């Protein structure tokens, strides 16, 4: 075998294993990223969809946040305007997670058969976080 061919063989081996690793990686670690409405339609179409790990992107319903500092549990509701889901999460929420205004959150976890979303991770993204809009002085 010529060196050029040998190299080609090695190259195919590397490219192939990268491809395989990526394919398996997506298959085994990929999670759905859904809005509450999409989650509702998937869960009603397929009851086994409960307890599948998903990410849900939505807004926190203002005023719905209930914190229990002693057990480090946070309960709140999220919505995309049509579908509302209660979420329960045990752990520390990020600084940007407040119920002062309707902030965007991404919750990762699973929808239980009880209709409550059990989150294992909460990410908060505040639209005004780095792009603050100045407000007119109050008259």
């Amino acid at each position, binding site marked *: 075998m010529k*060196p*050029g061919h*040998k*190299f080609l063989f*090695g*190259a195919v081996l*590397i*490219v192939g*294993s*990268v491809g395989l*690793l*990526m394919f*398996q*990686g*997506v298959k*085994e*670690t*990929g*999670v*759905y*990223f*859904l809005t509450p409405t*999409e989650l509702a339609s998937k869960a009603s179409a397929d009851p086994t969809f409960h307890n599948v790990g998903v*990410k849900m*992107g939505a807004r926190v319903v203002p005023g719905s946040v209930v914190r229990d*500092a*002693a057990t*480090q549990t946070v309960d709140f509701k999220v919505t995309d305007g049509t579908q509302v889901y209660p979420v329960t999460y045990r*752990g*520390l929420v*990020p*600084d*940007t997670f*407040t119920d002062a205004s309707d902030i965007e959150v*991404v919750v990762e976890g699973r929808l239980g058969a009880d209709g409550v979303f059990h989150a294992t991770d909460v*990410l908060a*993204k*505040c*639209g005004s*976080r*780095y*792009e*603050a*809009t*100045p*407000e*007119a*002085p109050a008259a």
Partner: protein
Amino acid sequence: MTLLGQFSLWVALLIGVFGAVLSFSGKWQDRPDLERTVIRSSYALAAALLVASLSLWKGLFSHDFNIEYVAAYTSRNLPTYYIVSAFWAGQKGSLLFWAVVLACFSAVAQWITSRRYADLLPYVAGVTNIVVVFFVTVMLFAANPFARLAFIPEDGRGLNPQLQNIGMVMHPPMLYLGYISVTIPFAFAIAALLRRRLDSGWIVAIRKWTLVSWVFLSIGIVLGMWWAYVELGWGGYWAWDPVENASFLPWLTMTAFLHSVMIQEKRGMLKRWNLSLIVATFLLSIFGTFITRSGVIASVHSFTQSNVGYFFLGFLLVAGVLSFTMLYTRWDELEPDAKLESMLSREAAFLFNNLALVGIAFSVLWGTLFPILSEAVRGSKITVGPPFFNRVNVPLGLFLLALTGIGPLIAWRKATARNLQRQFVLPVSFGLVVTLALVIDGMRDLYPIMTIGLGAFVLGTVVQEFYRGIRARRRMHGESIPGAFFNLIARNRRRYGGYIVHVGILLMFIAFTGMAFRVDQEATLKPGESIEMRSPYGGTYKLTHLGVSQYNALNRVVSAATVQVDYNGKSLGVMKSEKRQHVDSFGRPTFEPSTEVGIRSDLKEDLYIVYAGSVNGTEEAVYRFTINPLVWWVWFAGMVLVVGGILTMWPGGGGIAETRRTQAGYEATLVGAENA
């Protein structure tokens, strides 16, 4: 002042377009006066944008809150150095920053590039002008930093507290300097294609520039990791977030380029590959800016969505299509001068290194874009996170680490059994001994064992090189050991600087393994209560909550929680973590409260304390404690990497003559060693 700034942007636009049109018309090729005009358009562009930048800074420093940008990112009580950094803290300002820095870089490139490449320079000016024009266009038509508000707020919003950190003052400009300076090598590559001067001349002309970009990008990435670690409070430094990935992508392709370019210099191979890599690096750096600044991909870091994204997307498409079309039409002129002769050769090792780096880049790009791709193809958004990236990249990273040891030592063209034996017996044995020691010691985690074992092998190769070089110098010049050490590096900066970079890389790899052993615990403690945590090394921490105190500081209200730390019964002192509520000069709260973590760092591990808040306003506090092994080594490795990179590019250490001397020195070393 905004009028002046606005006016300068328009002037810059006109100069840029004029210079670019003249450059690409090619009319200057037999008109020296026009050639000078093209070059001067580069200088004029830099001057116009400097005026624009100064007027933005003037607005920031004079608290002209009628300017939207000034009101959005500063406040009266913001410390001065953060006002400086507010220039690039927001989208609009960072676009101006991009444009002005690129214009200055291109002026410097015109100024310092040797006359030998004079026939490339007008085209270089044309390419850089076009890129600057793109940024100026975005500013003028979509994100104007000089836009005024319809009213005058009495105070600005202030800078986001998470950006009020010295790492964050330096991180974006470093990253941007890296992104931006890539444009210069790209411009030379395009100029070479346009001029059909496809020897390796353009590569020699830009070697320093690629190293400069690489060093800036490396500093930017490491600072970003450090900022995430001390400021974001989740306890890690790398989350495979889209914005982090975006900075990693051009770094990968540039690293590949820095290696494969050596093969072109020495053997005249890989010409097409090198051109493709430099084009890809440029596109990825624009892509990085696009990801960071457009919010197309949901990221915790990214800015709100805006139509700036469409400009970037359009520019990426046009630049990509034009560059690769040009490459395609010159394909036949880029015939390699030599062929691969053996799999056991430096060429082959470098080729595999390039494949692995590009493979990593591809998988990272794929994973970053996967939510968009899956939505387009299958109709539902699927995201991949750290498990995906680690799964794909850890094996590839280990393969690369092994090549880091093999590449620099294996012979060019075809390695003989003698070469292999001479170079590898000791380092491989050292790697095996270390691996065995770890296993005997009871470590059972495959990847960490492999990382440390391979790291030991690479370290062995570098130490062996330094040892041989020092010995040869001592024999030939009778120098002392430290003298020989310094002269060795000073006389062969490229080679030994490169080895130092490799040491940085292997240390970084080993430091990363520490995260596999991290320990995490959350606790709610009343004053006086304590918990115990076991360190992965076997010791025990006792953490006692002392209390929470509140006070006012410069531009914030602080609640500080203090913890007494004992390790194996010995006191290590008191640590604190804060919750900060930033306020404006009227005492009104700005932004959400932010957390200031407490970190105690030593060579073995970091103790990382996050105070998450109090229970109903009492002094009962909620904490998260994390033990992160080997984090100090990440920062140290970053510094080694950067020092090595700077040594490699230090003026005087390059050039063709220097390369010849290096080779001669190497042969002398060989002879010296053979006689031993």
